[in-house]
Every structure is written in structure tokens, then in C-alpha cells.
């Protein structure tokens, strides 16, 4: 996979992940162009299209478009399900995820994506494994937080 984008119906980019380096300028241009193409498509149209030298696989979930650019040889249907699996992961983590969750916890959306995909390839397809990794991280986080408040208390005292 070359890159993955999440954007809203209004054309606001919510998440971008690039698996092959390009310049910021080029990225912005690609995002603009692709958003335009995808947003112009009607519902019920097919989820795949040719774009530049890539294949684009996209799917809309409520107000958000999930959009992956893959290479000519890659499998479109499994990419579609990869998007779905990512949505499931977000859903499980946030508890019926909505666009606002992704806006306010953008860093988490990135962490979950990183656990799931790496270098544009799927790292683990098991929902359990991925969520376990994220939850472990959260656990570490909470442990981290507590000493801080203790210190604070001490400071106060």
C-alpha cells in the first residue's frame, strides 16, 4: 500500500499515513486531487478506481471516507476488508467510534493504525492481538500517570 487517507464528506483530512516518502507539496497535491475524485463519486458506485498509476480502494463509513492507494498487483477486495478491520478496531477501542473520536484522539487513531499496518503491509490480522497491544500500551500509560500525581501531591504537601 502506498498511503491511506481518512477524510470527511466536507473534504477535511482527518488522518494521513504515507508508506512511501514524498515531499509535503506532492502529498498535499495528491490529497487534494484524490479527495476531489472520491467525493464526486455517487453512492453504489464501485469501490475501486484507477488513479494515476495506482489503484484506489475506498469506502464510506457514516461521514468518513477511508481511502487506500495500492499498487497494480495488489488485491482490491482484501484491501476493502482491511479498511473494515481497521474500522472495527477503532470501534472496539472507542466504543462505537465517530468522527469526533478520531478528531480528538488523533494520536490514538495513529497508534492503532501502526499496530495494525506497518510499511503498508498488514502486521496482524487478529483483532485480539492488535487490541491487546493497544490496551497494554494504555495500561503502561496509566501506570505512568500515577507517579506524577503522587509527586504533585508531595509538591503540594
Amino acid at each position, binding site marked *: 500500500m502506498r498511503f491511506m487517507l481518512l477524510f470527511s464528506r466536507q473534504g477535511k483530512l482527518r488522518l494521513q499515513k504515507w508508506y512511501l516518502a514524498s515531499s509535503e507539496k506532492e502529498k498535499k497535491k495528491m490529497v487534494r486531487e484524490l479527495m476531489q475524485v472520491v467525493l464526486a463519486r455517487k453512492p453504489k458506485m*464501485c469501490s475501486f478506481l484507477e488513479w494515476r498509476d495506482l489503484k484506489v480502494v475506498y469506502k464510506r463509513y457514516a461521514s468518513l471516507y477511508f481511502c487506500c492507494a495500492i499498487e497494480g498487483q495488489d488485491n482490491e*477486495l482484501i484491501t476493502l*476488508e482491511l479498511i473494515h478491520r481497521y474500522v472495527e478496531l477503532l470501534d472496539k477501542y472507542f466504543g462505537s467510534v465517530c468522527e469526533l473520536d478520531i478528531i480528538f484522539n488523533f494520536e*490514538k487513531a495513529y*497508534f492503532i493504525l501502526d499496530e495494525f499496518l506497518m510499511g503498508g*503491509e*498488514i502486521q*496482524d490480522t487478529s483483532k485480539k492481538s492488535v487490541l491487546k497491544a493497544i490496551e497494554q*500500551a494504555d495500561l503502561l500509560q496509566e501506570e505512568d500517570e500515577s507517579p506524577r500525581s503522587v509527586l504533585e501531591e508531595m509538591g503540594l504537601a
Partner: protein
Amino acid sequence: MPAVSKGDGMRGLAVFISDIRNCKSKEAEIKRINKELANIRSKFKGDKALDGYSKKKYVCKLLFIFLLGHDIDFGHMEAVNLLSSNRYTEKQIGYLFISVLVNSNSELIRLINNAIKNDLASRNPTFMGLALHCIANVGSREMAEAFAGEIPKILVAGDTMDSVKQSAALCLLRLYRTSPDFVPMGDWTSRVVHLLNDQHLGVVTAATSLITTLAQKNPEEFKTSVSLAVSRLSRIVTSASTDLQDYTYYFVPAPWLSVKLLRLLQCYPPPEDAAVRGRLTECLETILNKAQEPPKSKKVQHSNAKNAVLFEAISLIIHHDSEPNLLVRACNQLGQFLQHRETNLRYLALESMCTLASSEFSHEAVKTHIETVINALKTERDVSVRQRAVDLLYAMCDRSNAQQIVAEMLNYLETADYSIREEIVLKVAILAEKYAVDYTWYVDTILNLIRIAGDYVSEEVWYRVIQIVINRDDVQGYAAKTVFEALQAPACHENLVKVGGYILGEFGNLIAGDPRSSPLIQFNLLHSKFHLCSVPTRALLLSTYIKFVNLFPEIKTTIQDVLRSDSQLKNADVELQQRAVEYLRLSTIASTDILATVLEEMPPFPERESSILAKLKKKKGPGTVTDLEEIKKERNSDVNGGTESTPVNASTVSTPSPSADLLGLGAAPLTSSAPPPSTTGSLLVDVFSDSASVVAPLAPGSEDNFARFVCKNNGVLFENQLLQIGLKSEFRQNLGRMFIFYGNKTSTQFLNFTPTLICSDELQSSLNLQTKPVDPTVDGGAQVQQVVNIECISDFMEAPILNIQFRYGGTFQNISVKLPITLNKFFQPTEMASQDFFQRWKQLSNPQQEMQNIFKAKHPMDTEITKAKIIGFGSALLEEVDPNPANFVGAGIIHTKTTQIGCLLRLEPNLQAQMYRLTLRTSKETVSQRLCELLSEQF
């Protein structure tokens, strides 16, 4: 604002995000952001040391601002500091920031690499995971250089945790994609292959991705993966849907892994081992059988996952192209999908069938679906699906159905989407020419194309129809009659006027006997269009008129009157004026005989690649068209073979004969295939001549400039008053990359700017060059860049030629220079001691291995300069090796894809005589010869 759900609450961040969301205008947003940036900057600069939490919070805010699309120019240092925090959450944000925002600030890279190194060595799986993710996310060459050696060790170490193994495999894959030269092959590769047997399916999935990527470039090294992949696949497809627990996705067992294994197998031919092969066939049959079973779930995820595996299996079947039974079954399955209610499946079925159409086993089976595909063209509501249908019709076309398919495409063209019209026009033109039995059909088809979609008929298409008419005398009369009739329409496309003008000018006499198309009527008809046409078309028509003077002396005076009119003789356009003046003079002073000679019928055109095909190839990317054509060429070996028996002057072009190189690949491998520049000045006479595409002789000084680049990689290669060509290049082992910079030194645009790399057939087999065409317009004062990727397959003697053609003002420029890609660029220096050197020197004592040259010094004999040149040449300079300190010796290895060639060299200067003696010893004669040639020019 929703409650922040889990983990840490960075409240300040949430407040900030919500402020931004509440901004009513872009200006308000920018104002709020600037306020925040000022705040963060002061915090970072303030005297009070920030605690980790605050640092994390601010870095996270910066990241958010960046992701909104604003530039961030500070905070990198603070992010790097977070990397060395012991708190997971701080480290994690630090890594995220670096992953998203890293730039090539070398100072920073060093610090980041240090932090990564520490985390990799920490043996803490969570930290190792973060570090590996960061490497994969950044994926730069610097990272590859620093870590590509280490990661394979982590990957195959016995005590590495599964999750770290997964990350390590994909991290390595990412580095291999950008910097394959830094990833050393070695013992680890066989252990990676065995990961296919791992118990943990997540590890197997990640490893399969890695192996597939590596196997594409090093098939030999990973050959053993085939049988392991087959047995793994077999275990998955035969397992019950619950066996694999969490790896079952909507009742489909491990769909991702199955797809990946099937992809891996596509790197190889069918397994040789009969048992493995049998097992694989069984797997593929099982997958095909499952497609017929009732679905285990109504959910679309179930059918998508199942079909993803099915399509990948079909891809493998097509790739092997060896089991007729499987191919036909695959075709039938796709046939079912063609009528499926899911648009996605119809789309994929059309796409997949395109490749099936090119297999001899399934071509006929694909053809049975023609009606469904035609129907798709008419009824699909999504243009991308219709596009696939056009592609498939093109792929399944052969002699038996060409008339039907062409008719349907023409039909569709009337309402086709603008975005795909040009492509359809090209396809129709190609099919009509290729499968024409009766050339009247061909002429009708092309004229129809012009009528229906004149604006989309490119020059190539109408050039081609004229070429064919000129070369086939059996169709000339018909063509003249048909264009004459088509021109009767009150509004006809300018392209038709062009074709009509040209054809009547050549063959108008063939229909002049009919009083309805007498010479005067023909002339009046054409001239009635004259004033509506653009300058190039008018110029063409003027040439038609002078041809008429020769064909029809009876209307000479009428034509002379027209040429003599003020609107011609005093036309503001120089080209038109000149033609009018010259043609008028010619018609007045030349005798009938001279006129007849000057204005003789055009000779047949030499046989060549259809320029239309070249154009389609360019549009679609070479791969797609090539494959189909190549295969069709074989299958239709008798198609249009008839042309060979036609009279001599007709046999030359007509259709590409099956034996000809259809794509002309041999002739011009890397042409960017620009259309011949249409100069108004030469439309009639040399519209097809090679003048534009002929390669100019080498520019003066090119040889000298070339020699200057033998020992260096950067500099100016060519310069004249208009154009400067600069080069920057880098080489590593057998690979290289060259940046060519074309600078327009004038203030006027260059048009049709077309640089082309030309390799002789021989050079082409040893040197692989890849590049993309550049923008055909170069503005005044602007510079454009072209990247050439270079791969040295085997040693070579010649150098590629860089030919540049463009239009500057009214003139056509054609420049050729030698491109300094020389064998010594693929040198890797080798250090060795004196004893080793002479031992090897002796081993290479065979006369073919040595090459010697004694020559006069062309430059002052300066020791330091000579040393620099030998190093620049690419070999190592070995000090204190030669007993005579005045001599220079060097050693290195030439890397080609196929072999590595060890090279030793010795240069003995003679100051008194101002001479040198250069000796090269290598294990290959041609290498010694070439290196000696190249280096001799340097001193």
C-alpha cells in the same frame, strides 16, 4: 466536546482542538494557531524546565497543527528528547512526531538514530516495537544504512517475541523497498523462509509479505519458500472455519494470509516437484469449489474476504497459464460474476478476464461472454466499470468478432464519458487496422471515428489512415469516393478536411470521371471549407490545390485565381503566404513534365510500428498493452498474413505483419514517443517522414565532455546558447541513478521538448535504463529534471545517447550527446596489501585478461591529480604496493547484475618522455579492454 475516552487526558490538547473546531473562519483558525504557537515557543524557551508531561502535550499540539496543514519549524528537539524518556506514553508521542515530521536534518537524524539504537537494545518488546515502527515510518536511506544490518538479526533470533518478529519483518520489508542495497542477503534468509512454518499466524503473515518482496528480486535465494507456502496454504483452505480462531474473518479462514501466500507463489513458475504441484492444484480447486457453496454469512465482509482469496487464486492460475482445466473453470467463475449484483465484483471480473483473454487456453471461453460485456458497456452506471468493459472487449477481440466489437465501441463512443474517449478512439483505430480483411471497412471505420469524436482523434490516427490508403492501391478509389461524400456534410470536423484534402490531392483523379465529383466540384467542395479551418489545415489544402493543378490541368486557372487573391498572397501568416507565392510561381513557370515529377503521387511509406499503438502504450503504461499484443501476435500468426501476397507497393505498410516487431521495442526502447512535431511548414511533404525523429549526430565537443565525466559524477554535460544540460549521479554496486537537468537559457518557451535515451540493441541487453517523459513545455529560464534509474546487467562498451528535440521559436532543435554512463561507474574499491596484489596480478596473467596502452600525456603530469583521477575512476588507490613509488596501482570490483569482475590496474608514468604505460588486468577480456580505453583518455 466528547469526554476523552481512555488513557491519559491531555486536557490542554482537547481544549485546543475544540477551540480550533469552533473557529468560524480560516482567519480565526490561523489566529488561534499563531497564538498557540507563540505560547508553545515561549514554554520551550522559558527558563523553567518542562516536565515530560508538558513536553508531550506541546509536542502533541504541534503535531495536530501540522496535520491541519500548517508548517511547523520548531519542536523537533523537544520531540527527540521525548524519545529517551522512560515513560512509554512520552516516548510514543515523541516517535509519532518524528514519524510524521522528520526532515533530513542530519544533526537530528543522528540523535534519533541513537535513541532508536538504545530502544532496540533495550530488550523491552514495547520499546523495540516503537523503535521498529519509527524506522519503518521514516524509511529513509540514512535509517536503512544505520539499521538494515541489525534488523535481520532481531528477526531470526530465537528469543525474539512474536510481536517484535512481526514488526522486524515488516520493517525490513520497508527498508528493502527504498534501499535494497543496504539489506545484506545472508544466512538469515533461509531462517526467514522457515518462518512460514511458524505457529503464530501473525508472524507467518508478516514473514510472507517480506519473503514475497525479497523473492521478486532474488528468486533463487527464496526458492524453498514455494513448497512451504503450498503446504501452509493447503492447511488453511482445508481447515474448518473455526480452526483458526481469531484469524478467521467472517467465517473465512485467514483470508489475508491466503492472499499473501498466493501472491508469493506468483513470483515463481508452477512447482516442478509433482507432489507439490498436485497439492497446489488441489488447493486451487478447493478454492474454486468453495465459490459455489452457499455463503456461510449474509454479511458483505464474508463474501468479500472469500472472493478476495478467489481472485488471487485466479491470478495465480493465470500466472501459471498451464492448467487448461483450471483456466476454463476460472473463466466460468468470472462469467458468473459478470452478472453479479455487486458492482465491485462485476468490476473485478471484467478486470481479471482481461488477462484471461490473453491465454490461449481460455481465450475462446472468454469470447463466449461477449454479449454480457457489450451489455455492461451500455448499462453500467459507473464509468470505471464501463472502462473495464472497453478494456475487455479490446482484449477479447480477434478476427472472428472484430466487426461486432468495433461497431459496439463506435456505438458507445457517441455517449462515452469525455475522460475515456481518446482511449476508445485509439483502441478502435488499432482494432480496425489490425483485423481489417476488407480495407473499405477500415476506411469507413476511421471516418466514422472522425465524425463521432473528431476532437479526440489525435494526429496519429489520421496520419495512419493516410499511410494505409497510400500503401494499398485497392482501397484508394474507395477512399477518395468516401471522403468526397463525407465532405458533403455541411459541418464536418477539421480532421476530416485534413484527411479529405490529402486523399483527394493524391487520388481525386480516381473519381473525377463521375460528373458528380468532377475536378471543379472537388475543388469547390474543399475550398468551401478553407476559411473555417486553422492555419495548418489551410496549408495542407494549399498543397492539395497545387496537386490538383497537376492532376486536373483543366481547373488550373481557377486554382491560380485563388492562389493569386489577396487573402492568400498577402496573408498575414508567413507559411500560408509563402506557399501561395511558391505554388503560384510553380504553376506558372513549370512545364507539365516538371509539374508531374514534382507533384507525383506519394511513394509508399516504409513499414513501421503503428504510431497509434505507441500512443496507447504511452497512455496505459507499457506493460498492459505489451503483454496482450505479444500473446496475440503468437496466437494470430496467420492474421493478415494476406498482405504479404499483395502487390509490391501495397505490401509495405498496411497492417503490422505478424513477424514484425509490433511494438517496435527493439528500435527505440526508451523513447518517450512524442508525436512528431507538426510543423506547418512541412505538413504535406514530410508529415510522415522521419526528419523529426531522426537522431541528430553528436553535438561538437560531446566526446570531450563525455571523457570529463569518466572520473566524476556531477557537472555540466552540454551547453549552447539555448540549452544547458547538467548531471548529478550516484552509483552503488550495479545500480545507479542519474538526475539530468535541462535548463532553458532563453526567455522563450521550448515546446515539444522531448529528451530520449537511445541504446543500441547490444547495449540494451547489458544496461537497463528507466525514466519517465518530462513535461513537453519548458518555460523561459526554467529548469526541468529527469531521473534515470540505471541497472548494469553485464559489462558494456558503448554509452547511451541522449537525444533532445524541441521547438524554439519557429525552429526545430535536435541535439545528441553521449551520456556518461560508463562501466567504471559500477566499481567498488578494494583495499589490499602488496603481497595480495601481486599474487592476484600473477593469477591474471592470461594474455586475454591483460590490456595495455602506452600513450603520450595530454595533461601536466601531476601526482596528486593522477591520484584523484584514479580514485574518481572508482578503484581503490593502493599506496606502498608498487616497489617503484612513482607508479600507481589500483584495485576494485565491477558489479554487474550477472557477475562481479575483479580488476587490477597499474599506471607507470615516464616523466622524461612525458608518456604513460597503463595496464589493466581483469578476469574478463572485454572489461580489461573497456576500462583501459576509458582510463587512457584521462591523463
